[in-house]
């Protein structure tokens, strides 16, 4: 036996022998899922220090960033705020462009579905200067083929007619204006009557006798009698019916959103359009003999 007299040496020897045997244990044991136990122990022994080091470094870094490295924060904050404002503006512009693209897509789809009918697409660039008349101004004029008294529509329905055509612009009298009028008829009963504005959001259908039956929500379409609009274009729906003397007082809600017009179509000719309506498909089917086949009706004219 090797005699080690020093008690201190014996403690060291004890520690060394224990460590050796622990390592011996580790070399022997292999876990199926984790590999050699010595590796598990090594990782287990080292990882707390790594974690502590990482946490300590993270703490120091955060302390530096949050408390000492704030010199440029105000400047960066202002810059970020400016960028944020610019991005908000850009988003608003993009949203507007997206909405415009949607509207133009609807217009394009409408035009493509009526490819045989000539139409001039125009953008609304202004409105009437006063309240005396309800007009809008288009960015297309005589040079684009627009003439006075041409009909103006949207895919939703009738908008009005061109009252003035300038070389590069034109003016449209909206359907709701007091001076405006269009030949119309009730889609179900085929009762014809001119319809016009009163300077209010709702239109008035004149000259419908009290004896005739008119239903609320009934569609009103163009009759083609005014020689401005082709027949069967949607004008609006019956919103209010009152008995009058000698005619009913019928108020009609315009089919087109006349208060928010941005793009419109100008009709250079009276060729009929087969307008599809999603409001009431059942009633959208023309019941009159002349309306059964618009193309044939046009030929008859």
């Amino acid at each position, binding site marked *: 036996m090797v005699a080690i007299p020093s008690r201190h040496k014996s403690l060291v*020897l004890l520690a060394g022998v*224990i460590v050796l045997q622990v390592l011996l*244990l580790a070399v022997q044991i292999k876990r199926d899922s984790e590999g050699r136990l010595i590796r598990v122990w090594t990782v287990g022994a080292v990882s707390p220090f790594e974690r502590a080091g990482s946490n300590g470094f993270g703490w120091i870094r955060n302390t530096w960033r949050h408390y000492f490295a704030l010199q440029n924060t105000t400047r960066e904050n202002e810059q970020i705020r400016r960028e944020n404002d610019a991005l908000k503006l850009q988003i608003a512009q993009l949203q507007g462009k997206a909405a415009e693209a949607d509207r133009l897509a609807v217009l394009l789809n409408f035009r493509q579905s009526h490819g045989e009918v000539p139409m001039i697409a125009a953008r609304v660039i202004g409105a009437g200067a006063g309240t005396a008349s309800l007009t809008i101004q288009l960015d297309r004029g005589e040079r684009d083929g627009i003439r006075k008294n041409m009909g103006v529509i949207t895919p939703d329905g009738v908008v009005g007619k061109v009252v003035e055509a300038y070389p590069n612009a034109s003016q449209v009298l909206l359907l709701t204006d007091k001076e405006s009028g269009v030949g119309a008829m009730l889609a179900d009963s085929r009762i014809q009557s001119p319809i016009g504005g009163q300077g209010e959001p709702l239109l008035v259908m004149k000259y419908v006798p009290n004896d005739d039956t008119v239903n609320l929500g009934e569609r009103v379409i163009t009759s083609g009698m005014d020689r401005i609009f082709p027949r069967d274009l949607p004008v609006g729906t019956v919103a209010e019916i009152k008995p009058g003397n000698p005619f009913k007082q019928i108020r009609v809600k315009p089919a087109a959103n006349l208060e928010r017009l941005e793009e419109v179509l100008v009709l250079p000719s009276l060729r009929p359009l087969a307008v599809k309506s999603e409001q009431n498909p059942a009633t959208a089917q023309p019941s009159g003999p002349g309306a059964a086949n618009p193309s044939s009706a046009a030929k008859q004219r």
Partner: protein
Amino acid sequence: MNGAFDIRGESHIEVHKFRVGAIIIATLMALVIQTWTPVHFSKAALLDLPLLVTIYFGLSRRNPSTGLLLGMAIGLAQDSLSGPTVPLGLYGIAKTIIGYLASSLGARLDTEHPAARCALTFAFFVAHQGLIVVTRRILLAQPEPWFNMHLIVAALVNALVAVFLFLLLDRLRKN
């Protein structure tokens, strides 16, 4: 030496010498008996003769270094004889520490009295089992109960056997 735990200075403790090869032979005998008797007497598995030998020579030699080295050698040998399910070092670590503790205590306490030997053996046996459980649970991740009645009974049996075994081993001393 009437007091079992009579604390003395190290200068008053007698370091016993053994005949040549006595420690090796006693160790080998303990290992052989330990592996042989349970085959015929299942109750003999309660005994841990290598541990008793470790405790005896540790208490007698009273040198921590030799005690821990002897404990390590006996423990590793026991590990080697315990089959592949027992990794080398399980008993080795436990007996190394027990050898160190026994030799350290033997240098300070009178361990010649049978009662002292019985009490110390009981304590060392419990500590030995505790070390094994710690090694299994912490180092080997093997579930092992801490203490139970079986441990107490085994500790008592080993402590009683140690009294007689140590008397036999005393005959191996030179003086």
